[in-house]
């Protein structure tokens, strides 16, 4: 493996850098190629998946069979061909039709609470667990359960036998 035995650390670093550079270059090339070409159906679906069907419930634009969604996919294709980024396209639809066409609400204004509440809930939950665990380990238990129904198998057997004897 290591042909650069003398200074391995530097070699690794160098290779990592050049690798990173190559990857970046490759990405740039793909992006520019993609921009100059007609976008593929997979590119359109990638964006369409992040939008909700405006006329039906619980389905994204990529999977939706309605006419409206087909038009939206065509529009996404046009915008991609114009060289718009995914985010720009999402913003375009959100600005035109409202935030509720996005699969996840944007993180601004009131919509922040959609993420905030679970986080607060998690903190409250962990606190509750620790609190309950502490409290329950200190509490003095009842010596016996005095609300428990009286279950005396011996007594019942006696009763039963008595009944049988009486008959």
């Amino acid at each position, binding site marked *: 493996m290591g042909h650069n035995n003398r200074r391995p650390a530097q070699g690794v670093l160098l290779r990592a850098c050049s690798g990173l550079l190559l990857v970046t270059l490759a990405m740039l090339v793909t992006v520019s190629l993609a921009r100059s070409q007609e976008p*593929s*159906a*997979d590119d359109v*679906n990638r964006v369409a998946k992040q939008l*909700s069907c405006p006329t039906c*419930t*619980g*389905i*994204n634009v990529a*999977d939706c*069979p309605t006419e409206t969604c087909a038009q939206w996919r065509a529009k996404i294709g046009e915008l991609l061909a114009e060289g718009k980024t995914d985010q720009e396209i999402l913003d375009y639809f959100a600005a035109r039709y*409202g*935030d*509720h*066409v*996005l*699969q*996840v*609400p944007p993180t601004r*204004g*009131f*919509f922040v609470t*959609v*993420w905030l*509440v*679970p986080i607060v*809930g*998690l903190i409250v*939950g962990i606190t*509750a*667990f620790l609190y*309950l*665990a502490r409290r*329950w*380990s*200190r*509490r*003095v*238990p*009842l010596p*016996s*359960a005095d*609300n*428990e*129904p*009286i*279950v005396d*198998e011996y007594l*019942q057997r006696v009763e039963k036998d008595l009944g049988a004897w009486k008959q």
Partner: protein
Amino acid sequence: MADLGYAALLLALVLAVYASVAAATGERRRAAELVLSARNAALAVAALLTIAVAIEIYLLLSGDFRTFYVAQVTNRAMPDFFKVTALWGSQAGSLLFWAWLMSLFGAAVVLGHWGRMRVFVPTVIVVTQITLAFFVSLISGVWALLAYPLQLLGQSTAAQMMAEMETLNPFYQLGFTPNDGTGLNPLLRHWGMIIHPPVLYLGFVGFVVPFAFAIAALVTRQTGDLWIRVTRRWTLVAWLFLSMGLLLGMWWAYGVLGWGGYWAWDPVENAALMPWLTGTAFLHSVMIQEKRGMFKVWNMALIIITYGLVIFGTFITRSGVVSSVHSFAQSGVGPLFLIFVAVTFIYSVVLLFDRLDSLRSESVLDSMFSREAIFLLNNLLFLAVFFVTFWGTLFPVVSELLAGQKAIVGPPFFNQVAGPLFAALVVLMGIAPLMPWRRASRERLLRMVVWPAVGGIAVTGLLLLVPGLRQFTVLPGTQLRLVPVTLFYGLLTFVVATIGLEFWRGVRTRRRATGEGSLAALVALISHNRRRYGGYLIHLGVVLIALGVVGTSFFKVETQRNLARGESLTIVSPLTGAYTLTYLSFSTLPAPDDVRRTGASLMVQRDGQTIDLIQPSHDFYMTQGQAMTIPAMRHTLAEDLYVILAGWEDGGASATFKAFVEPLVNWLWIGGLVFIVGTGIAAWPRRADERASLVEPAMPVRAAAGQ
């Protein structure tokens, strides 16, 4: 005929109201003959609703289109089988069906426990019959009677909403006889969807039993674990049906909806998932009360929440409130449901607070390293998933009401927030069975954990280090997923190993003690400890389900191409390599009268070898003007190849295909089967001698008649 059905419905309503009043009075005055009368009324309600359902089915079969409901959900072209199942095809019918199931449960539980647990029976009658009366009232048209007085009071919107409810009656007669009906939604004409609603409803309705006994325990102050032991099997059966309902729904979505997925975090799906989550927490935490007399308030709270969610779920699935606040106000059903849920919930909570003194714990939590502590954590995690699901489902409503902004909370939110919580639950599932009650000594715990942990670490290590195995963990270009996914596989290995070890230890002990063969020892082990080993099987099923979920969530591949005849597309599976699909031909296929079915044939090739010929198709339902895509699937244990025909041009000269590779998806269904078998074993009735542990408490209802 329809009049007869309607009469049965009205009589059932009157008797349900009577039964609840009589049982409540009988309980308060210790009047045994009133309780007996209430019982008989409850049985009569079940009989009357059975008649109503039978008449409704007769009307559906005979095509009585003058009955509004029949015209809504059937048409002449539909086969008889679908006509019968149209009983739960729309709102009025499914509410009738729900009420009927509930009345059967109510009758069965009252008869079943009349002799033994009579102390609880009056309250159980009150709870079941009030719920039943509410459901029957919704479909009996009685609320429409309020329309006129409300109008007089100037409440015209409310009056309108109530008036709308007149047509919710499954026996409502139109003023004329239409020539034909609209017919059932084509999406529902699939046998997965045919049995999914009844199974789910059985699950929903079944939870009334533990809830009614919990309330009865509070009312009578018999707050020991008796109510839990009495209802254990009822709860398990309800939970089994709810689980099966969820799995069937997923299976249906996967096979019918044609988007290559099985779970969309849709409000209706969430509505069924939420009671399952809290119900699962309940099933676990009642074990602590049985063994250690702890968590009493907690268990009461869980069953109250679960039952509230059951009613809420029925409401959501049948009202569409979450998709828009506006659909809520279209008929009176939404507001009435909300009031009913609120009243039930508030009453239960008030009762619970009133009885807090009798719910004190009998033990302390000895250590954080104990099964009790792990169970507590398990419960909080289940509640956390529930809370997240609840929040995400209701957020659109909250946002619209509070901020006036419409929003949609889609799958990415739920996956990101609930995903890690589910993963944590799987971790606990591996650890909990190893934890002893009260307190674990460190040595014992280490000894138990060491081999499963070695197995888990070994799997993670192998996947990370052996280059040939990398393909099982990561898609090209998505290296970031490598670490969490390999860790998760390691975790699943750990859980399977702990479960396997438990079985192995049990079998070894039995063989030493009795000299049985391995298989005989295994069978005997399971059949003598059904709860325990059934439980382990359920956990094993969950692991397999998790495998399928991880596979499809992280490694799913999809591509879409428009192909001219003779052209091919290639889709690369992360597990098994590339598939080449070649578009061969396009044809019209034989189908029922009102359906136009077109299909495209594709040749599936792999390394130049033809391995299959598949035919995705497209159904057009002419009556409803609705289209349906029928995916073609090629199942293997490693993955499914899933192809849909998305569209075509010029009579099929070219066509658009969407192809998916769904890695490990079949483990989801296999895991589901293991899960169901495990639950069945855990719920299987005990022999009579084992049943003797359920002894009746002292009876407040004395000198009951009829004996």
